[in-house]
């Protein structure tokens, strides 16, 4: 050591030799790392797959909600702002009760068939409600034109 220049100090430090690495350390370290990798429940690919599935599910749920809301808005607009699902079902129930009191046996059977189609409306299928209503209207028209009508 001749001077105390920072460069000399660096060189002198560099001249100090490091402790030797214990023999077999490489095999030990790599072996345990490989064992860890084998024991992984979620490999990188399965993890990526799980994340992709979660994203897909979330997107489909959100998409379904958005589509349902858009359809609801469309129907509400078609029905002049009336709320769609519940009032229609209620209307239908009242109508069926009233008509069944003053109709023939054949008519009652037909009404029963229409009424059985009603539970589908509870699951929120507005299409079913509208179809049931149309069928009921058609049946009422037929009833009013037929000679067996009570009136």
């Amino acid at each position, binding site marked *: *050591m001749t001077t*105390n*220049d*920072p460069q000399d*100090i*660096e060189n*002198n*430090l*560099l*001249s*100090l*030799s*490091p*402790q*030797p*690495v*214990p023999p077999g*350390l*490489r095999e*030990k*370290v*790599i072996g*345990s*790392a*490989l064992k*860890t*990798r084998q024991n*992984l429940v979620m490999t*990188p690919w399965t993890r990526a797959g799980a994340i992709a599935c979660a994203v897909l599910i979330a997107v489909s749920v959100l998409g379904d909600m958005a589509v349902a809301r858009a359809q609801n808005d469309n129907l509400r607009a078609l029905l002049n702002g009336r709320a769609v699902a519940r009032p229609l079902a209620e209307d239908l129930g009242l109508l069926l009760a009233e008509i069944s009191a003053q109709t023939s046996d054949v008519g009652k059977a037909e009404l029963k068939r229409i009424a059985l189609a009603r539970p589908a409306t509870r699951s929120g299928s507005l299409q079913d409600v509208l179809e049931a209503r149309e069928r009921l209207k058609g049946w009422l028209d037929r009833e009013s034109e037929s000679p067996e009508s009570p009136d």
Partner: protein
Amino acid sequence: MNLEDLYGRYGENLYRYLLFRLGSPEDAEDVLQETFCRFARYAVRWRLVRKPQAFVFRVARNEVNRFLRRKLGRSGGDPVPLDRAFSFSAALAAPPEPSGLLLLELADRLPEEQREVIFMKIFDGLTFKEIGSACGIPANTAASRYRYALEKLRAGLEERR
């Protein structure tokens, strides 16, 4: 980069750094194993790592902290004896000449954060930027710690003359 390549590039440097940090060959081996297990678990995408050397040292540093926390937990809150932590003399072979011994002794008296920067810079060849990334400090701070450490070593050597 697979695990063998990773070990080939950084394994021995990491071992020496861990020996310097912990002062015990057994602890250094344990933490090195844990560090590589972590690399294996996370299947690091090395193409996306901008400074691999700084990254591996940072991971090793975090593992040291976890190891020390565990050790502290096992000791039931009592102080863990870490007499040889941050010790140059634990990581370096004793030099034959007295001037080398003196330098080692002076280096071991530096503040810990300065010792760490000196070790990473001189023995692991990290740049100040990489040291900054590994230690979570700005590169300028790493550079100034290095400068202060060399200045202290120089002053110590002058004093002993």
